[in-house]
């Protein structure tokens, strides 16, 4: 979470890590998930929010959020 807090995130989905100098591009949904994580929401809360916003099952939402979080970890952002 400490790493997440330091990220500079633009509205267009450009993510810059000032400690590593790495930059990333995330989709609009990814951007919204990142915002949720930064605000301290857990994966269940984020999945429920995806469920409300998009036509997706809870199972798919949970899986997508888990996948995205795994991507963030793999990129050293979490």
């Amino acid at each position, binding site marked *: 979470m400490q790493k997440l807090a330091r990220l500079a995130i633009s509205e267009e989905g450009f993510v*810059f890590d*000032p*400690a*590593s*100098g*790495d930059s990333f591009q995330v989709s609009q949904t990814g951007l919204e998930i990142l915002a949720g994580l930064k605000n301290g929401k857990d994966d269940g809360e984020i999945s429920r929010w995806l469920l409300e916003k998009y036509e997706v099952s809870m199972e798919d939402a949970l899986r997508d959020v888990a996948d995205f979080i795994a991507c963030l970890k793999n990129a*050293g952002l979490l």
Partner: protein
Amino acid sequence: MPEKCRLTVKRTMNGFYIGISGINAVDNPGPGIGVARSLREDTDLGAKIVGLAYDALEPGVYMDWIVGKSFILPYPSSDGDALVERLLYIKRNHGLDVVIPNLDAELPLYIKHAPMLADNGIRTFLPDMRQFRLRGKDRLCDIASRINISLPLTKVVNSVDELLRAIEELGLPVMVKGIFYKASKSYTAAEAVAHFHELVAEWGYPVILQQVVAGDEMNVVGLGDGEGNSLGMVGIKKLSITALGKIWTGVTVKNARMLAATENFIHEFKWRGPFEMECIVNGDEVFLIEINPRFPAWSYFATGVGINLPSRLVRRAFEMPVPPPPRYEAGKLFVRYTYELVTDMTNFKKAVTRGETP
């Protein structure tokens, strides 16, 4: 009632004549042009840049919007007497208040002759010889342990036998480094032996063998005041490099561990003058690769983000007040580019025949 005494002091500054070497802005650029450009941006200094070139074809000799008059210097030889004589000539015939040497080979000579130059009105702002030797590639182990930074496994070797034994310990691939310049990655023992011989022939003994560590190449340019305080520093990450390994694009970063280690270096060793700390960053681990006792070729990057280190150096050298360095922003981009200029032969002719430009 006595009238209040109104004292107004108006200081007029005619500007400093500042000698800058390393004005070879070529594919392996010297740091001089970036340093000179930074000095010119501090208009209060009124810097008159004196180009100190070793070849009439160094591009800085022709970049008259940055460098004023240029002089050809004798190559820095063992005792440096000819170099000093030339600097004194420039002082007498043109003006030279301070010199910022930017090339590794010059530094021991400038450090050795700094008191004599100062006696003749030419200031420098350099580490002393003990500090200079301390950051040698063969001594980095001592520095790393004192500033709380990792060092890739390193062996100093003086023979092929020692080299082969070191390879057994470090494994392959391995970095083979000259004592002053050059480093090559060797994938086989035979390749390492060949690099060893090349480096010994060019730079002498010892040769340094270093474990290859994975990670991002990050550097810091900094300036120490000689009393343990930082006069400013900027951390960057190289985003792309040339075939010669020189930065072409980069981004400012704020890696807390790397910057803390740099602060420690300045504090612990009371470093005086500019330096570049080269690191490899892998997650939370920061490895020290090298410390160069001079400005790097990309030092204008720091000026561009608001920390004009050459200007701060000159101000400190003249005991002028130097305010605390401003904060810089992470995420600023550095983009180098190529440029051409067309001029007549005047500067070239004069530099070749008279050793100085008009």
